[in-house]
């Protein structure tokens, strides 16, 4: 059984999704989906433990040897991603039952859970597989269910947002497919490990350049790298709150994973960063993203929009770490990936609680909420502090490593820019704080109560995780260190 964990990780939610159809009652489906997600989380914990103790796990699907068969490959990087995705998915699902009562009509609840599990299975598949074409297949599974999930939003603009995302996402996926096709043409293999061995022989050809360019652009569309981020704010703002909380913490992270995997493992660092001026390109785009998106966040009137732009800025930080392309830089990216998942899921889930009570996330509607929903707002404040990077929160840990990485490379001005970027975070977080704590409640709003426990508990689990992993950094630092070392081919 233990030997089959890598495939079970993906198969369990994938098979569970259609099974939901047999359960009719909303509550029943919820319990089932939650159990499945929890099981997936357990599997990912076991996988991580195995990887950390005994190294990379290779699993041949159906017993077919790679490169002919499909191979699942779990190294510390994969295990970390699996852990993040399943962990966040489980906690978010915990809140789902209460939250979707208000946002999704009863008859669509089953449909929602099916899509959710499919999307989960897709993301897990992308991460677990060691086969480039398989990546595309799972990408489509997670994306298609993702578009449908976003379209479930109560607001009619959700349809338009989902359509936008559909177009952009499909272009991205197509680009990735073209890239994979070109690679296959040159090397005759789809297995990533095998590709990395064969590509160097043909790396000077124009076809390989083209393949790489297609793949990078396709992935960057998916990860909403500035200026390819246009689909993201609306998709996050109009999707059901639960979906936003789940996607904000996982979807872009998976894309970052692909970027790292293709750049470091498949094409190799020397090719990726010497053949093209990618380092300076990513650095510039990352920094531009931080400043442009943070500034945009300051001017948002819709709080979901605000945090969506903040997400784009945070992706900028990860890309800066990536562009440093040293072990520390990559570690900073991965740490921030882990930490940002915790921050944004906490924040968006807290927003779900706000939506549950007042039905809106306009900043002007937040007046007086500091008193009326003290626990929810406290959660938002702590999440916001984490976003700023205050010590004892996870945000500080990732910022520390990012600055270290940048300074190690001698990029002093970049270090200053990164820190200036966090000041912008102070501004947009504080707009929210001032609205909630310094304005009197709106007229006719005297009866607003604190969110129900079924929402508060998941929110606070995530908030406490924000603090816990800011204090006890052993897990995150060890795993990300192992992951980044193994990507650089250094033994830890």
């Amino acid at each position, binding site marked *: 059984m233990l030997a089959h964990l890598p495939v079970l990780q993906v198969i369990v939610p994938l098979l569970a999704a259609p099974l939901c159809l047999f359960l009719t009652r909303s509550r029943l489906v919820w319990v089932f989906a939650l159990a499945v997600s929890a099981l997936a989380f357990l599997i990912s914990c076991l996988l991580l433990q195995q990887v950390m103790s005994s190294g990379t796990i290779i699993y041949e699907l159906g017993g077919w040897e790679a490169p002919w068969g499909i191979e699942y490959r779990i190294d510390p990087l994969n295990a970390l991603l699996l852990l993040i995705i399943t962990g966040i998915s489980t906690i978010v699902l915990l809140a789902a039952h209460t939250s979707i009562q208000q946002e999704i009509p009863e008859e669509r609840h089953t449909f929602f859970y099916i899509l959710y599990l499919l999307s989960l299975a897709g993301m897990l598949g992308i991460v677990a597989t060691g086969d480039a074409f398989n990546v595309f297949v799972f990408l489509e599974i997670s994306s298609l269910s993702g578009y449908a999930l976003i379209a479930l939003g109560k607001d009619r603009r959700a349809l338009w947002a989902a359509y936008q995302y559909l177009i952009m996402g499909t272009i991205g996926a197509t680009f990735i497919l073209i890239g994979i096709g070109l690679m296959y043409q040159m090397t005759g293999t789809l297995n990533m490990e095998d590709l990395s061995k064969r590509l160097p022989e043909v790396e000077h050809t124009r076809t390989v350049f083209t393949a790489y360019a297609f793949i990078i652009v396709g992935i960057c569309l998916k990860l909403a790298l500035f200026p390819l981020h246009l689909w993201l704010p609306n998709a996050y703002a109009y999707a059901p709150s639960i979906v936003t909380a789940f996607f904000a913490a996982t979807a872009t992270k998976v894309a970052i994973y692909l970027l790292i995997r293709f750049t470091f493992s498949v094409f190799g660092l020397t090719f990726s960063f010497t053949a093209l001026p990618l380092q300076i390109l990513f650095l510039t785009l990352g920094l531009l993203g931080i400043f442009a998106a943070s500034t945009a966040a300051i001017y948002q009137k819709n709080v979901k929009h605000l945090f969506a732009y903040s997400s784009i800025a945070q992706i900028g930080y990860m890309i800066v770490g990536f562009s440093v392309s040293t072990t520390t830089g990559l570690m900073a990216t991965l740490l921030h990936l882990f930490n940002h998942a915790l921050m944004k899921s906490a924040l968006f889930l807290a927003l779900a609680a706000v939506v549950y009570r007042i039905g809106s996330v306009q900043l002007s509607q937040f007046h007086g909420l500091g008193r009326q929903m003290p626990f929810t707002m406290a959660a938002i404040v702590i999440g916001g502090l984490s976003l700023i990077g*205050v*010590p004892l929160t996870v945000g500080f840990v990732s910022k520390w490593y990012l600055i270290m990485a940048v300074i190690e490379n001698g990029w002093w001005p970049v270090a200053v820019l990164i820190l200036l970027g966090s000041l912008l975070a102070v501004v947009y977080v504080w707009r929210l704080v001032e609205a909630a704590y310094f304005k009197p409640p709106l007229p006719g709003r005297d009866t607003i109560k604190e969110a129900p426990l079924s929402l508060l508990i998941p929110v606070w689990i995530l908030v406490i995780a924000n603090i816990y992993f800011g204090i006890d950094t052993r897990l995150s630092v060890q795993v990300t260190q192992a992951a980044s070392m193994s990507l650089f081919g250094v033994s830890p």
Partner: protein
Amino acid sequence: MIISLESMLQLSIILPLLAMLAIVSTGRNPNLRETVSISTSLVVIYFVFNLYLGIKQGENIQVDWWELLPGLQISFNIEPLGMIFALIASFLWLITTVYSIGYMRSHKEQNQTRFYACFAIAIGSVMGIAFSANLFTLFIFYEVLTLSTYPLVTHAGTEDAKRGGRIYLGILLGTSIVFFLLAIISTWFVAGSLDFKPGGVFDPNVNTTVAGVILVLFIFGIGKAAIMPFHRWLPAAMVAPTPVSALLHAVAVVKAGVFTVLKVCVFIFGLDLLAILPSTQFLLYLAGASVLLASLVAMRQDNLKARLAYSTVSQLGYVTIGALLATSAGVIGSSMHIGMHAFGKITLFFCAGAILVAAHKSKISEMQGLGRQMPITMAAFFLASLSIIGVPPAGGTWSKWYLLMGSMEAEQWILMAVLMISSLLNIAYLLPIPFRAFFPARGMPVTDTGIKEAPLPSLIALSITAVGCVILFVYPQPLYELARAILDAPGLAYGK
């Protein structure tokens, strides 16, 4: 002794934080809530005093909590400078609590529970700062202090309070994130250690340009030391209730700032390195300018609290100068000035609050003739002013004496002149207030308006601190010995 010194150290940080929980849960019963505050502060004083006796006997008290990031530990250690800060802060916390009870109740302030709770966190973090064994630990508590005092500054919840809070948080958080954190990471990168070590952590052959830049980052980054141009938060924070201004903006927050400056100068750079850095001279002049300009601005303020705020900016400059002089007399003067100024300034703020509560006056021009109605308050104001100016019979004399000696030793004649001119300015903006109160200008009708002294708890508090100013003049030895020991001690332990 039943409790070990190590546990006392930890408890003096943790107890205020626990008290916060107790305060929140007893919020419905104000008397019980205040009992919690007072008894906690008494216990903390007891612990700090025992720790003081401990290091006097040469004990080395060190506590390691856990490793937050590889190589970066949260750990605590007591050395004389931290002891000075802890003694002053814990003692004045008690006095301020007593004072606040009178002030807050007679002023019928809202949200008193939040007020006392945040107060407790702030003191806990001050203790953490005082006892930090490395820059990393210090930084964490430094930020906690900023955040926990934000609700205190914006206590009133008005538009003014919101604006003040914005400037407060913007400058303190901004400088600490952009400059201070960068300075810390750079130090970690260049020196490989963030521990406070006698003589500093930098290699003697370190590139002086790099170290000089890092020093500038530190001085700018420690916004709580309020060196111009990063001083704006201090006057902005004056929207807070007076007890907050008194403890936090005359003692805890600003002193945390200059304390950090001193720590960095003495234990991160070391005086030898500091003296040869190219940026030290520039920073000295900047601090000197800060001293003079703030004094000049203070003269033009009619609002008493604003005048005191600018006076604080100016006095903080003294401490920074003393640290940057890189002479032993300078360090002694600086560390003594932390204590002397704390007692003087807190008394002045207490008086300002007492006048506000009893006479409802905040403008200096309206305070003429107030001495008849509020003799104790005004007498205390007079004594405390003397301490700030630095003339006998008040404690400020000694610290200014050593600061002047320090500037002579370092042959900084311009700075010496700055210090002396500023003392004259202090006279000009402080003494007229009690003087006019007792001897109003001719033509000012002094009518008996029924104004009486402030509530008893407030009166007791301000008398104690005023008497404290005098005691520190007559009996400055303990403070002086601690200040001397900062540089004498070969190890961190004092007296060894």
